[in-house]
């Protein structure tokens, strides 16, 4: 029933994964799998675009933290794109705005890297 959209594109050497829908314990495994897959293929510069995410909870945050750790141990980087206040709020409360580079657009994210 619950759809999680995952769309992959390329931008200046970054893998851009656009996520849409609701990220919770039902759907997070699909996101994790995809991110692990990317790193496995040697893609260690990743932008996760959360602009079309309607909902994320701590399970989703955990997947993103795990992916960040994974790319960093491979000398890569993971940046987020997010402007929605409801999504930003959970990053702020959990202190993760200090852990992730959060950008307003995919362009900004890839240029900043």
């Amino acid at each position, binding site marked *: 029933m619950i759809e999680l959209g995952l769309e992959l594109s390329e931008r200046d050497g970054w893998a851009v994964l656009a996520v849409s829908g*609701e990220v919770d314990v039902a759907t997070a495994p699909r996101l994790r799998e995809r991110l692990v897959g990317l790193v496995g293929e040697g893609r260690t510069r990743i932008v996760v675009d959360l602009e079309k995410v309607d909902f994320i*909870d701590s399970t989703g945050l955990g997947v993103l933290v795990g992916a*960040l*750790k994974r790319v960093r141990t491979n000398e890569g980087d993971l940046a987020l794109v997010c402007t929605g*206040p*409801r999504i930003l*709020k959970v990053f702020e409360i959990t*202190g993760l705005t200090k*852990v992730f580079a959060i950008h307003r657009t995919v362009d900004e994210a890839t240029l900043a890297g």
Partner: protein
Amino acid sequence: MKHHRISLRVPAQPEYLALVRMVIAGTARIEPILDDERVDDLRVIVSEACTNAIEALRERGSDPSTAAITIECHLTDDAVELVVADEGGGFDPGGLDVLPEVTDPSRLRIERGLGIPLIRALSDESEITSGPEGTQVRVVLQATEPPAV
């Protein structure tokens, strides 16, 4: 004084989380005492509490076809009270690991343990009662606007 009480019992399975969030948000909108941001807070809270309940029941080895979670929501003019109850194995809410500072490099090791801090931060009042018979998470969100008298 309004009193609306709804309760929902669903299988302790991840596929039901979206439905639970929808019900809680829908209920909060029937008597709109919370603004949209607070309704979103409530969606996060109920999702976190139910996720923990699902995990507790799975760890206990409960029969997945009968294990269930109960969600109650009580609306008055002043506040929304939400209670999520499970019959999992319980835990010591006072004894949770303290998260390392977010700037601490070891923070990256932590992919979990964010649920209860979120529940606490997003609610105006929260209380966790847990024992070997199960766990109850109770939160209160105060009305966004003063009630119309």
